[in-house]
């Protein structure tokens, strides 16, 4: 029971803060993770600045371009980036998914080929996992990869591919053995987005953003050298423990910041002869939001504690993820309720409170983050894997 960071960790925190003072881009996009294309250059520029410090993937081992940070140092790093709302959209899939998986399953050649590009902030990756009929039931995917000489020939379709319209590379899972049980016939590929036959179609979301895409594969040839690990073992690689804590901690820290902003708004806004914050309905919502943000942070810290102690987090990570996701939705909803008529204003409206961040969050969270069965799936994992309850 010790919530204090060591002097070294504190010093690292200060170093990051100082560095961010001069290196954070002037124009910080609102959605730090969404990777919308208009801010692509900002994302890339910042990623390359991070690279000069070894901070693109500082938790990776030094030999792969990281700094080999401890999990707590990584936490400190992630917290400060989230606190500053630093744009991390350029590298999340590369550093969170591609790298860790390559480090475990890649050949030396593959590691040499792809890892340095990531830590240099030079390439953008996207993730070709979901398909129209394989969402929460991902293993039922149908995109096929058929061996043909030294290549695999890919045919099929992916969906919800974030950033596919500007990514350089994709991690792709596709079916190499249609006869095998569904989890056992899947392989894992690294695909150059410029390969002939690969095309993308935008999926415009209800916020009029173009963040997602459909990606079509029409006889796309991927060299065998781009197969990761063994053929038909792709499912297990895809399910590898990933850089989960980043998003969860980011959520809690971001939520904490949103509570502070909302509180300030309620202090500053006159209402009925007093201040908005003097309304009891506002006070209890702010208070709940602050408590939940703190809880979200602590549930993430618990995961870090386990990792620090060398244990492998099990359902604890699902709890943190679930709580933080739900919490952000509740917070957005509370924020809009507090704002009353102003809460409905789009972020582009001049009167939108707090630049419409709560409105954006409301659409984003209700629309997507809890969608796709995330909440259900996380609860299933907690119940069956964590609590040992029997599957149906």
């Amino acid at each position, binding site marked *: 029971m010790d919530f204090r960071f060591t002097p070294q960790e504190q010093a690292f925190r200060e170093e990051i803060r100082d560095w961010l003072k001069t290196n954070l881009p002037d124009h910080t996009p609102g959605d730090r993770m969404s990777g919308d294309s208009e801010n692509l250059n900002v994302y890339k520029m910042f990623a390359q600045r991070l690279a000069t410090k070894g901070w693109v993937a500082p938790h990776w081992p030094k030999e792969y371009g990281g700094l080999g940070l401890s999990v707590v140092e990584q936490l400190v790093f992630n917290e400060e980036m989230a606190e500053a709302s630093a744009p991390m959209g350029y590298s999340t899939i590369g550093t969170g998914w591609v790298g860790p998986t390559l480090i475990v399953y890649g050949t030396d050649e593959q590691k040499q080929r792809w890892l340095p590009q990531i830590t240099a902030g030079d390439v953008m990756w996207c993730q070709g996992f*979901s398909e129209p*009929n394989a*969402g*929460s*039931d991902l293993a*039922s995917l149908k995109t096929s990869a058929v061996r043909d000489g030294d290549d695999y020939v890919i045919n099929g379709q992916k*969906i*919800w591919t974030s950033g596919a319209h500007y990514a350089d590379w994709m991690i792709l899972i596709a079916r190499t053995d249609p006869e095998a049980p569904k989890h056992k016939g899947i392989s894992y590929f690294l695909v150059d987005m410029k390969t002939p036959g690969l095309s993308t179609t935008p*999926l*415009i*979301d*209800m916020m*009029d953003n173009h963040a*997602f895409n459909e990606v079509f594969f029409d006889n796309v040839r991927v060299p065998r050298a781009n197969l990761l690990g063994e053929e038909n073992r792709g499912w297990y690689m895809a399910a590898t423990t990933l850089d989960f804590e980043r998003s969860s901690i980011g959520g809690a820290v971001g939520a904490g910041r949103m509570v502070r902003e909302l509180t300030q708004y309620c202090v500053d806004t006159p209402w*009925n002869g007093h201040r908005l914050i003097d309304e009891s*309905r506002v006070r209890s919502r702010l208070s709940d939001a602050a408590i939940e943000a703190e809880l979200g942070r602590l549930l993430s810290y618990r995961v870090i504690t386990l990792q620090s102690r060398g244990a492998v987090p099990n359902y604890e990570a699902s709890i943190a993820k679930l709580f933080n996701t739900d919490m952000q939705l509740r917070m957005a*909803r509370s924020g*809009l*309720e507090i704002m*009353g*008529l*102003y*809460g*409905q*204003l*789009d972020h*582009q*409206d001049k*009167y*939108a409170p707090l630049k419409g961040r709560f*409105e954006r969050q*409301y*659409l984003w969270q*209700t*629309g*997507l983050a*809890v*969608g*796709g*069965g995330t*909440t*259900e799936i996380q*609860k299933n994992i907690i119940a069956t894997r964590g609590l040992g309850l029997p599957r149906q």
Partner: protein
Amino acid sequence: MDLGLDEQQEMLKNFARDFLEKECPESLVREMEEDDQGYSPDLWKKMAEQGWMGLIIPEDQGGAAMTLCELVVLLEEFGRALVPGPFISTVVLGAVPIMEAGTDEQKAQYLPKIAAGELIMTMALTEPSAKWTADGVTLEAKKDGGDYVLNGTKLFVPDAHVTDHMVVVARTGGKGEDGITLFIVDSKSDGIKFEQLKTIAADKQSEVIFENVKVPAANVLGDEGKGWETVEKVSRVATVAACAYLVGLSQMDFDTTLNYAKERVQFGRPIGSFQAIQHKLADAIIDVDGSRFITYKAAWSLTEGEDDTDMMISMAKAWASDASRRVVAHGQQIHGGIGFTKEYKIQLYFRRQKWMELMWGDADYHREKVAQLMEV
């Protein structure tokens, strides 16, 4: 005692559903989101031909003299079809204050044209203070010879930019409910500036700025200084109208989601066979049904002049505001990724809900009104 529709209401419902499915398809709803005017004059004309604009206007003014109960039935269908345009603004916010407080001349001047679909109106009530109560009205109206001069800003005024006239709620003196006067203002008067707001629902609300706007004394609606009573009457009808729209919207969101849950297969079975999804849908249908019957009760009480009218109206809006938000949230959640795309229709309901949740007071506002009435 019967909570269902009577024969006439049933016919109205069925007719309206068929009509709107044909005349107000999803494509029109989407088009009008992008359209600056936000409504289709063609559809407007056709609706007028059905007598809908005059539904609650007296027969001698060219209306059908039906009650709020029938209007609720119709507006449920509007919510279902997400009909865009200034229908509630015109028929409720424009016509009702004239029916309630207008002189015979004013009635004759405006109501038949409204009933015929020839006039578009709204009421300009709320201001930057975003309050529904009388003390929120600060727009100043000063007597100047035979005219009044209006100065001030109205905000969140629905459909203002396409109106011919607005009923403007202004302050001629006094404090609180006292000293409020209504004016029928020509929307093209000198000194009026409109700026459309950008909202979640892509509905058409505006900021309306009044700078030395001259209004003839003949355009005062009702007694000077006594306008708030009329606003309250309008507010009762408008609140029930908002509830009815939410009922239809919730029902359609629910129906769409239910179908999706039956058709979408994951893990080798329809997702609607999972208990977690089933229980969400069970919760949602309770929310929808509950919203409907409390709205009917409110409409009936208001029509009949029952003692519990204000209580029922506030109960209905408090419940429907929260319940519809739960329904559309479940809708998004069950749809998953597809629900987030612009192309698929469910997001239209999700976004549109926020608008009516707020109109004429959100759940907090009406909960407090319920509490006040309970003390009595």
